[in-house]
């Protein structure tokens, strides 16, 4: 699985994040206070304005400490009822329709159907739930204000903060219920679609070449647009090759003369690997000199670095926390290695590579462990605890090679002038397998977090904007959140084509992004205007949530466990945003006549 950035541990993240949150909150609070004072001073004079601002803060604090869970629960229930009145269940109907007809739109010949179907259901759920949250949260309060139904609430002893929080919680509850139902349906859908078995085509079974033991090879029937090669031992047991990301185990049942081959359900199809990634990766060039990166073989995507075969070039992965308790029998290495051939070579064979396990302190090493690289596949290479060194002496993994839980694994390509490409997450230890069901639940938790964010922003915008405008503002937040990096890069000027005004001119004049605008006063004005825009964009973008950070679809789709740290970071980030939008929403609602 591709990780373009290193995963962050919750413990490392929480304190700097908390500090940033407090700083941003203080700054925004101060700006809001000054802004509020200026507006009030303009309307009522400086003294009265000051008094108004002071009262606003004082009342706010009183309201905050006097929040009643009972009233919030009642208001939340109202929000739930309102959602039901607004036929929110239509969203679920649409979801069912999508599932029913998914087969029409999905690629039935995909080489990784699990990834495809899981990505599909999770993405479809995300967008449906987010859109539903958007409509519900942004339109509710303005509609109540417009229809004056808000007076049935504000005339009762409730505080504005409770109205805001009640709506956020109410919409979140209805969204959660919908998500839970969608989750169950999605799980059943994916499990049913991917569940299959094959039959061994008995006529295809042949004795394995150069094998005197009586082993056989053959193939299975074609099911769901794929078939497997079968390798059976002399007793008729064995397994299939990996096709479409899974394999089957084969057992033989004999009833007199009758032989029946039974294939297991697919293995490794719906899984949740818990990987132990390397803490560091360093390279050696062809002369054996150390470097941070390997060679670029001409790929635009610089994720992986390449090492040259038949030379001293190597990639060394450093692993921490290798203990006999975690790995009592063997080191379950899994790797995805990219192959780049600089000449055709022997097409029938993969490129030969080797792994060497090394003591990071003494340099003591195991003998070469060779393998043929399987490009684009996760290749398993379990390494026994008992090893031999290059001189043929027996060594023990933990006694001789692991020091303070640390171990180096050195990868080399052995075929002359052929290349291996790796990134840090490409070689890992499969520490254990977590429950796929739990992983699926965790992915829904990340969707829930996104829904909570959209709901919060929607309610916040609806406290001071009309329904349609609040919806547009929430949608803009969502879109900006999904393209945060791009918007930030535009704001920083690191993307060709200039800022928003310059881009607009280029689009209008059909001018490409690389040509210079004609020098002159107009261009100067445009660029100056863009600077203002870009400053604004840069600061607004910094404050908005990055929705891509809440996206855990890839983990589930590629069969990796979502790290608990990631979930915790997502939860805390969302709660921080909800707290912020609640506070903003409260103050804006306070400014409305209806809430006074």
């Amino acid at each position, binding site marked *: 699985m591709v990780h373009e950035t290193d995963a962050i541990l919750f413990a490392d993240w929480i304190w700097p994040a908390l500090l940033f949150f407090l700083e941003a909150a203080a700054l925004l609070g101060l700006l809001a206070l000054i802004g509020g004072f200026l507006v009030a001073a303009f309307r009522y004079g400086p003294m009265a304005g000051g008094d108004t601002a002071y009262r606003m803060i004082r009342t706010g604090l009183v309201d905050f400490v006097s929040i009643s869970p009972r009233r919030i629960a009642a208001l939340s229930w109202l929000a739930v009822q309102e959602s039901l009145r607004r036929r929110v269940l239509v969203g679920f109907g649409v979801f069912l329709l999508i599932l029913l007809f998914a087969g029409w739109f999905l690629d039935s010949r995909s080489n990784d159907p699990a990834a495809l179907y899981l990505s599909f259901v999770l993405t479809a759920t995300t967008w449906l739930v987010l859109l539903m949250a958007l409509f519900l949260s942004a339109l509710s309060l303005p509609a109540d204000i417009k229809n004056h139904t808000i007076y049935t609430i504000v005339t009762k002893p409730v505080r504005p903060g409770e109205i805001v929080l009640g709506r956020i919680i109410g919409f979140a509850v209805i969204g959660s219920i919908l998500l839970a139902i969608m989750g169950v349906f999605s799980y059943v859908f994916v499990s049913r679609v991917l569940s299959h078995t094959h039959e061994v085509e008995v006529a295809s079974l042949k004795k394995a070449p150069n094998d005197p033991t009586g082993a056989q090879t053959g193939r299975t029937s074609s099911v769901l647009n794929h078939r497997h090669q079968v390798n059976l031992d002399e007793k008729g047991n064995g397994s299939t090759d990996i096709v479409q990301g899974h394999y089957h185990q084969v057992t033989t049942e004999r009833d007199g003369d009758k032989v029946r081959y039974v294939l297991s359900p697919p293995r490794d199809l719906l899984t949740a690997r818990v990987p132990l990634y390397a803490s560091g990766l360093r390279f050696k060039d062809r002369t054996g000199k150390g470097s941070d990166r390997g060679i670029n073989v001409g790929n635009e995507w610089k994720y992986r670095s390449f090492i040259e075969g038949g030379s001293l070039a190597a990639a060394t992965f450093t692993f921490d926390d290798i203990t006999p308790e975690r790995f009592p029998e063997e080191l379950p290495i899994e790797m995805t290695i990219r*192959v780049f051939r600089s000449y055709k070579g022997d*097409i029938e064979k993969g490129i030969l590579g080797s792994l060497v396990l090394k003591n990071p302190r003494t340099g003591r090493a195991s003998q070469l462990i060779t393998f043929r690289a399987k*490009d684009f596949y996760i290749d398993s290479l379990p390494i026994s605890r008992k090893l031999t060194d290059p001189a043929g002496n027996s060594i023990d993994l933990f006694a001789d090679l692991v020091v303070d839980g640390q171990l180096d694994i050195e990868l080399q390509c052995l075929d002359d002038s052929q290349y291996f490409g790796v990134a840090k997450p490409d070689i890992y230890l499969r520490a254990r397998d977590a429950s796929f069901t739990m992983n699926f639940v965790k992915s829904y938790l990340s969707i829930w977090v996104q829904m909570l964010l959209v709901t919060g922003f929607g309610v916040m915008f609806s406290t001071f904007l009309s329904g349609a405008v609040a919806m547009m503002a929430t949608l803009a937040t969502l879109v900006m959140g999904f393209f945060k990096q791009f918007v930030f890069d535009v704001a920083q000027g690191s993307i060709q084509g200039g800022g928003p005004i310059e881009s607009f001119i280029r689009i209008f004049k059909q001018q490409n992004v690389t040509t210079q605008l004609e020098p002159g006063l107009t261009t100067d004005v445009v660029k100056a205007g863009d600077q203002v825009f870009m400053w604004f964009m840069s600061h607004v973008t910094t404050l908005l949530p990055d929705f891509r950070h809440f996206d855990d679809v890839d983990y589930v789709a590629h069969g990796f466990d979502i790290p608990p740290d990631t979930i915790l970071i997502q939860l805390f980030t969302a709660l921080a945003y909800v707290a912020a939008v609640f506070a903003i929403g409260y103050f804006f609602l306070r400014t409305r006549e209806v809430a006074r």
Partner: protein
Amino acid sequence: MNERQRFTRKIVYACVIAALLLPLSWLSQPETTESKGGMLAQMRAANQLSQAQLGEIDPASETIKLATLGMRGVAANVLWTKANNYKKTEDWVGYSAALEQIAKLQPNVVSVWIFLGWNLTHNVSVEFDDFHDRYYWVIRGINYRQEGTKYNRDSPRLLSDIGWTIAQKLGRADEKVQFRRLFREDDDFNGSRPLAQRDNWLVGREWLMKAEQVAARGVAVRGERPVLFHSHPVMCLVNYAEDLEEEGTFGEVAKNAWRKAAASWAELSNRDLPTLSNVFVRLGDKEIYDERSKKAQEELDRLATADLKEKFKAEKLASLTTAERDAYLAPADRRTTQQNELLYAVNDKMTIGHIDLAERVPGENRAAALKAAEEATFADMMSNLINIERDVVYYHYWMLRCQIEPEDSTLEARKLIFEADRAFTAAQLVKASELYDQGMKKWREVLDAYPALLKDASTTDPLVDSINHYRSVLHQLDEKFPKPFVLQDVLEADATFHGLPLPEGEQGSEAPPSGDAAKASP
């Protein structure tokens, strides 16, 4: 604005909308059994643009188009961008899923199927190291385009592209040996097709012929010269026969394959082919036009006296500038560079056209001379046009190959060299040496009978590879490379084609041995 004004305004809007809808409804009336429908329906039918005429009506495609709510272009752009990003980051699952969706959004844009199918067969497949994976993606690309034919059943370009890909990608790639083997074993692609027919060239030909059938119904073939378009199925048979021999199948099977190829070339020779000059020609008619031209020129020569020709030539010479005349009259070996540059234009000026000559014929012969001149000019033009088309498809060479390959001597020569190469690979040096000796002698006979074969590297390249193996065998047996060598002319021709010098001591000053000399060597 009061309530009444608002109501009035709504009524006005409704009336305007209804007024606009009426003509629209009239224009877009659907076609029924009783009527031809509105103008839009008629135009759709006339231009064969209705979905039913283009291909299958796919509910998935229609749904996805409808779901984009008129933003199909934007959606397609977003998907193309996503697909490019997936390709960059090597996410092939996402890439192929995006391709499927793009195709569903734009099912009737043939170039989308071709372009994206090409991406799968040629660009994605090579990203994988294992040839099984490569084969999988090649077939994915072919299947993708086959899916496209459901929506565009009358596109000769798409059908031809499928045939070309099955034939050429599987039969010409670096992994062609493995691809052809996997293709024969591929029950999922071939279905119930008999094993003998499971050859990429033959299956590719089936699709190419489907394209020809569609073209024969009057659908224009765009983007490809007609002679090339029609030569693909013929060349499939040639390549099939070649690959049979390359894989060690000789005898009657190979002979029949070559005969079929020859018959197919003969068929192509008699097909009316449009040319770029909007004139239809037949590849096989060149000799007929040459004969007609010859006869007409003889008649013209009879009517126009030698004096007349000389006089005409002298006039033309006199009309040249001094520099042009000097260039024209100078002996070839003494012409300066400048004169050589001038010569092309001068020769053009000095050429005496048939019509020009006929117009100078005096008296009662003039009319007959003009008729003969017109006939000669027309026949020359047709001959030239045919020649151009013949050159495009390498007509002479392939006709010659199809003629000689089924002959016993050629088959025997190829078989001996094939077996020698196999013995060489198996390190059976003595056997290889003997087989090479016999095979090269046989090749000598073939080349003596058909020296034109030496004009093409397709003949010499594989032979030179085998000669190099032979050289290696002799070296390992501690024997010298024979001189004179029986296929010396092959080595020389190869050196000329590739602009390389012959190995030290193998420069053949002697003429290529033939007849008795061949018997003495190697």
